[in-house]
């Protein structure tokens, strides 16, 4: 059979359009068929930051997370990969800092992915490489991510990092139980879904000496996190954006 260039181009374009059209129909069907997630947990974290022993040089949560997830130590600050990190109260809650005790406003808080109930990052992802699981965890598929960084632009919490170079050379001591990433993908906190699957709590929570990190199920009224949220005033980051963060800061 002899194909002219024109015929070849038309056939390939039609095939591509056909495949993607079919895929589109399937994905819309799947989205329409997915029902509510009743009976599942909704994982959340409360940060009781005044219990944090940072002043004694404690960095255990960050170190535990780094090791558990093979997070690279990137020398350039601009290209840092951060899953859980410290930031001063006054930069996290600038609107609630005026006239507040400086001891509080200069206190560091632990920041991580908020695992929003209505996440802007998953909404914008063009490939479904980041999505929200039934138990509230915002997941990442590092094999599907094309590295467009639209999710980073959409995240109002700076919770996402990008591998600007190959991260594998910059991991001090590789944990063989967790995947490393390739260059050119976005990564972030996964609420230790791999540990939750084994019935363990997140690595940062387990390693926290001062019990400043409280992890639990928001759908369980008897859980520690629900108890503490009932009894204490808790703040979320930028709740007015309607993202519904699952990380709370206890005052």
């Amino acid at each position, binding site marked *: 059979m002899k194909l002219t260039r024109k015929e070849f181009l038309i056939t390939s374009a039609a095939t591509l359009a056909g495949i993607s059209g079919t895929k589109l129909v399937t994905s819309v069907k799947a989205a329409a068929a997915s029902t509510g997630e009743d009976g599942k947990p909704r994982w959340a974290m409360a940060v009781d930051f005044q219990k944090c022993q940072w002043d004694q040089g404690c960095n255990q949560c960050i170190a535990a997370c780094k090791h558990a997830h093979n997070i690279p130590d990137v020398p350039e600050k601009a290209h840092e990969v951060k899953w859980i990190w410290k930031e001063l109260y006054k930069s996290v809650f600038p609107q609630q800092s005026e006239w507040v005790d400086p001891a509080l406003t200069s206190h560091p808080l632990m920041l991580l992915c908020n695992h929003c109930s209505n996440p802007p990052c998953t909404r914008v992802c063009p490939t479904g490489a980041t999505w929200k699981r039934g138990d509230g965890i915002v997941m990442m598929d590092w094999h599907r991510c094309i590295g467009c960084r639209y999710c980073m*632009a959409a995240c109002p919490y700076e919770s996402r990092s990008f591998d600007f170079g190959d991260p594998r050379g910059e991991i001090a001591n590789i944990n063989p139980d967790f995947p490393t990433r390739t*260059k*050119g993908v976005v990564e972030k906190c996964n609420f230790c879904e791999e540990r939750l699957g084994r019935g363990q709590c997140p690595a940062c929570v387990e390693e926290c000496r001062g019990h400043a990190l409280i992890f639990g199920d928001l759908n369980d009224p008897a859980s520690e996190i629900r108890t503490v949220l009932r009894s204490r005033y808790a703040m979320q980051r930028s709740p007015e954006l309607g993202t519904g963060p699952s990380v709370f800061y206890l005052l």
Partner: protein
Amino acid sequence: MIEKALTGGKRYWFWISLLLACIVAGAAMYMRQLSYGLGVTGMSRQVSWGLYIGQFTFFVGVAASAVMVVIPCYLHDTKQFAKIAILGELLAVASIIVCMLFIMVDLGQPARVLNVLLYPAPHSVMFWDMVSLSGYLLLNAVVAYNTLSAEQKGLHAPQWLKPVIYLSIPWAVSIHTVTAFLYSGLSARPLWMSAVMAPRFLASAFAAGPALLILLIIVLQKSARYDPGEAAIGKLATIVTYAASISTFLVLVELFTGLYSGIPHDREGLAYQYAAPHGFWGMTLWMWISSVLMIAALAVLLVPRLRQSRVALAAACVAVFVSLWMEKGLALIVGGFEPSPLGTLTAYRPTCTEWGIALGIWAIGALMLTVFYKVAIAIRTAAR
């Protein structure tokens, strides 16, 4: 058809070799980026989009602006635009390909780009941007190709082409609207989250695109003796004047809302662009130059006598194009990330690699445009 681009004088071939050299240099820079990663660019965790996405946005506008010659030519039957419509459509084709290349070089994992088709995500504006851009490319390619091949055979363009041309008009509006929605739907970025973003994009596109077209026509008059006539240039100049005025008006509207409302996030974003907050100059000087160029251009364009002078008009068109290229092609995108949600300002400066890759893509665009115009004009001249 393409063989018409293979004959030319010394200057033609010098220009082609110059472009090829730029493309080779760009490709070499891209190889560097491909092997190391996007760390060779000036982008960072805070400023995660830069020159590439800015240039993508700007050239979507240039592509959409073809509608400014297609509407008068086909809807209003403006005879003066008969010789220009094809130039606009071919400019759209080249611009869309430039846009797609800028997206490709911005990807961290370009080899996986087909995931956008394999796992289509209709909830993502980027999915719709892909649909609208590829549709627009197809429409313009079909229109331009069929118009030219009919002319080559000395026939009228086929009847079925009319509805395709009509469809390309709303489609042109859609590509830039959807591109604006990429930004204006993000609650994390107050500078972008504005309903006026799409109209502003369209207005600035309809100024920058026709300004470029005027400049291209001036070049074609000199180099190819292709003269669409004074009236056509005059009409294009009017379009540039209106669009540049509306675009400036919309910028001022944005400034009023952001500054007068006093909401810190909105104000800080604008301060980053125009007022060098805390001595952090970032993009401020860049934006000042862009603003001054636009004011100067408007001063020329709004005076009919100046607008009719060829030199003044050309200068004004250069100023409009450069001003909007600076604003939409870089500052607006970087500005969305400044300050970051945690209040930090991060310096962003495109690296040599980044400029080199951008140069390569512009050269690919210029090469396509040269070949397209060469073929189109050869067919037109032969037909007469």
